[in-house]
């Protein structure tokens, strides 16, 4: 029996057609709709965002994704989250998966803080009862008891982030995906936030994180992959991956 895999990615590629601005206008050529639908694969330039990606994540493992800007780190995370569907290959996920990308986005600025807790909770698939139970804990962590009845657009950036983190980190998934570590904010709150995030990672079954922060990766991750131009160029323990990346990064190109 092979060990249970949380994530099993098998030879995945993701390629997308490149659009020119005029390609997005129907009125410049109304027949384009028909030709796009039937001829799209032959006519347009294709960019491979990810190529031939294979990786596995077992319970308890924490994978750091290393690579320069534009290497495809965020794209890989979105592929694992099921937002992007691979063009070829397969992504298999066991259990629940949650990605924290841009968590401050997508809240309703006209709605109050409390309403936004409900909105975000419902979007994450919780029932009303469960959300009601979550509220005291969210208020306690975010320290927003006084402001929670006010519209979100009266919140400061820090308050906004506190609320977003509090709601997003209520229940730990089997697989947690992080695009950069969440940990900025006012200094008084930073320690509390760090503690919360570390606890959240500990409760999750496995972690995949993309980051440029090597010291954070050292403290957090067990394994590492190095991405370059959408390909995995190295896969191994985190130390080996960081060493590889630092050696290769010196060489231009």
């Amino acid at each position, binding site marked *: 029996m092979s060990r249970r895999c949380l994530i099993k990615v098998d030879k995945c590629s993701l390629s997308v057609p490149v659009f020119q601005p005029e390609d*997005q*206008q*129907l009125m410049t050529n109304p027949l384009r709709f028909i030709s796009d639908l039937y001829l799209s694969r032959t006519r347009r330039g294709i960019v491979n965002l990810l190529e031939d990606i294979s990786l596995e994540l077992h319970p308890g493992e924490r994978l750091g994704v290393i690579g320069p800007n534009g290497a495809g780190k965020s794209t890989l995370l979105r592929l694992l989250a099921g*937002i992007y569907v691979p063009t070829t290959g397969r992504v298999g996920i066991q259990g629940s998966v949650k990605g924290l990308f*841009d968590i401050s986005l997508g809240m309703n600025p006209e709605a109050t803080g409390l309403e936004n807790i409900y909105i975000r909770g419902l979007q994450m698939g919780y029932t009303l009862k469960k959300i009601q139970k979550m509220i005291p804990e969210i208020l306690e962590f975010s320290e927003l008891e006084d402001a929670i009845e006010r519209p979100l657009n009266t919140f400061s950036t820090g308050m906004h982030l506190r609320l977003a983190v509090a709601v997003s980190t209520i229940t730990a998934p089997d697989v947690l995906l992080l695009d950069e570590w969440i940990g900025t904010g006012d200094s008084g709150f930073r320690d509390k936030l760090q503690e919360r995030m570390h606890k959240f990672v500990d409760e999750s079954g496995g972690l995949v994180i993309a980051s440029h922060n090597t010291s954070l990766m050292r403290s957090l991750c067990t394994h590492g992959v190095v991405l370059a131009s959408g390909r995995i160029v190295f896969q191994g323990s985190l130390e080996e991956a960081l060493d590889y990346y630092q050696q290769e990064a010196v060489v231009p190109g």
Partner: protein
Amino acid sequence: MNKPGSLIYLAYFDFAVQYRKTMIGPVWVLMGPTLFIVTLGLLFGEVSNVSSEVFIPHLTIGLITWTLISGFVTDSTTVFQRNRAQIMQGGMTLPDIVAVDVIRTTLHFLHQIIIVIAVFVIYDLELELYSLLSIAGLFVLVINGVWLTLFFGIIGARYRDLTEVVSAIMRIAFLATPIIWLPAERGAGGIMGAFLTFNPFYHFLDAVRAPLLGHEITMMTVAVIGGITVSGILITVIFYRRLYFRVPLWI
């Protein structure tokens, strides 16, 4: 896929928050159509010989139902761009997002029904058992709103100018559909027949309006609605299966 209950609550929050900005809040939604109906009712009372008891209910139900139809159509093209954050965070599928948008537009309509009730009270109009058929017409209309929003949402994510094309068409369709005018005596066989027969909006509108006014729904209306509903759902399912995975890359 989220639970239907969650989607209804999400739509309700959208709906409720939308009108909080204004001082008179939800009343604002009723003001616009009411002013339109009163003004047009006075105008047509002067220039035509149709009594206001016939024209005003026709205009009111027509206008409110048209707001629902045109709301579905014009909102559909931007549905995925507007919900980019939700799509890119995961958790909500494209059909979830479509459902929330359709329910929100429908809530808006249900709210405006107050104007229709007021008109029925003012003109002391009576409802029969047959009028209940209007609810079925509304149900079919909302079902069509779902496939339509998904279908045009996908195309609109790819072609950004679809919004302008669609709103231009809807402005013409408003005039071509008997809302601010009455079809001639003989209906589809009359002088404006072509505007009724070949106008799908008319058939959907009539399925809601005719039962309330005690008019008959023609077989042609039933056939057109049935045909559009079935073929619309089929085409959208094929279209969705073929293209759904492209939408996150397009927005």
